[in-house]
């Protein structure tokens, strides 16, 4: 089974020390202090791809849209078991919405043979959760969002569990080829081995610019987008908690007092 897995490099905003500041243009954020990581859900998609490859054979192609610095996440996916990689990189791709992004990914797949395409279900930076779904429509294949369990029924179909609210799994049978937008938590993403990392450093990452995609300028970036994020703003803050001040011994003492007063300890 040949698999394509799409990975995005995102700022590690899960770290409480990471502050997000809107830049002077209002359409971007200051990137200077960010450390970058593979998007959380994409990490689970990579693991699912490698697990399927180990069980059923085939090749895994890693696809990314990003600058040269994104090679870091691509190489890590290659080190875990990916076979080849494509990186779409052109300044004209900036500000692509989910449709323009999906169009770029589709262009990278035109020369790739695949049975299954996987993305993460949601990116931690822009949170659209729409790229994989739009991509499936562009490719003309079925899809499933929030896919948490993936089982190969035969070489024509998969059994896929979609995670809904409350943790309920909606089981579906889906024909191949298809696109799965993978939810977090369905597997245990491995660490790359030293040997894998060494081998990955020798694998070629094919770079595609606008000309290589075969797309026109008005199909990518802001021009190719249907919904453009035009202005970032700082959210209005609701009423805040009463903050207990002091060093840990003081704040803990105050909290213990409050809990006692309310009969909770």
């Amino acid at each position, binding site marked *: 089974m040949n698999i394509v897995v799409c990975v995005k490099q995102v700022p590690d905003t899960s770290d409480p020390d990471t502050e997000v500041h809107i830049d002077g243009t209002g359409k971007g954020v200051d990137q200077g202090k960010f450390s970058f990581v593979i998007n959380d859900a994409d990490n689970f998609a990579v693991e699912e791809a490698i697990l399927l490859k180990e069980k059923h054979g085939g090749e895994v192609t890693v696809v990314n849209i990003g600058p040269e610095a994104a090679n870091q996440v691509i190489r890590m996916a290659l080190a875990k078991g990916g076979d080849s990689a494509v990186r779409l990189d052109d300044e004209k791709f900036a500000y692509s919405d989910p449709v323009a992004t999906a169009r770029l990914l589709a262009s990278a797949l035109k020369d790739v043979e695949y049975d299954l395409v996987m993305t993460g279900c949601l990116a931690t930076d822009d949170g659209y959760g729409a790229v994989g779904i739009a991509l499936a429509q562009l490719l003309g294949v*079925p899809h499933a969002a929030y896919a948490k369990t993936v089982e190969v029924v035969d070489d024509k179909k998969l059994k896929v569990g979609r995670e809904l609210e409350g943790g309920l799994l909606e089981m579906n*049978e889906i024909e191949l080829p*298809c696109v799965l937008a993978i939810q977090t*938590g369905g597997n245990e993403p491995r660490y790359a081995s030293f040997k894998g990392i060494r081998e990955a450093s020798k694998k070629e990452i094919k770079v595609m610019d606008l000309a290589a995609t075969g797309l026109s300028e008005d199909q990518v970036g802001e021009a190719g987008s249907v919904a453009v994020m035009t202005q970032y703003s700082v959210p209005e803050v609701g009423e805040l908690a009463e903050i207990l001040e002091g060093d840990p011994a003081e704040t803990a003492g105050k909290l213990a007092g409050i809990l006692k007063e309310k009969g909770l300890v």
Partner: protein
Amino acid sequence: MGDILVLAEHRQGELREVTLELLTLAGQLGGNVTALLLGSGVDDFASKIAGFADKVMVVDDPMFADFNQMAYQAALAEIIKNDKPGLVLIGNTGQGVDLVGSLAVELDLPFTTDAIAVVMEGDKPVVTRQYYGGKINGTINFKDAETYVIGVREAAVPAGEGGKSGEVAKVDNPVTAEITARKFLEYVEAAIGDVDITQSALLVSVGRGIREDKNLPMIEELAALMGADISGSRAVIDAGWLPADRQVGISGKTVKPKLYLALGISGAFQHVTGIKGSDLVVAINKDPDAPIFQYADFGIVDDLLKVVPALIDKIKETKG
């Protein structure tokens, strides 16, 4: 502006609340509101929805008994092409997310997902969304079109009282072809383990701020001392540090304890949606801007790994 079409959502024989939220939002935006109900034997849903819509369009067919994105998309595409609504609202839910992007691409319509606010500027909707885990907001402007498709976050707009009495119209199923590429099989319920956190009176809940699972024993000691159960955010469950049935939030459990002690939890909406029924929320987080402080009654801005040991000592003293 043109009419607003709202997709009703139901699951396992229950109409989902997001349906009434979307209809309430549609009513606020003005224009004629049509609810589209795809289902099988759903007359009771139709009469409930009629209180929130000017018209309820019901397509009653076994094909829609359970959610199948391909069947839903085929029906919606035909109805949108035919009726040309100005705006289509769909819940940004497990069902809606599966549908919005592909439906809009099929019909070549502008769309966005996970809207937390929608306003009309003339005939055009303008959407507010969250970015970077809710740390900042962003405004979405659409390209001009006849119809816009928007996925709206659950609970972004509280459901109103209704007060309408829309006409219920059964229409023929516009989907004539059999759907074969994707089939609904069954639902599998999440397992419940040794502790049912939806029934817990006291919850000590941990998030990413715990950093490593080797810090869990400290949390276990605190919970044991307080007689509390332990729950966690998605990150901690995904990491395998707590079992899946301890997850609080949209894709986990909705809890209603007397005390919810949130340790190192940032407070993304997916999480806080699950804790709104708590009597008292206390948050300990080193990030003063963490959204959790907007939902907490009391907060401590500090590293939980420093505060928790101190809290254990103080509670021991309190107990004498």
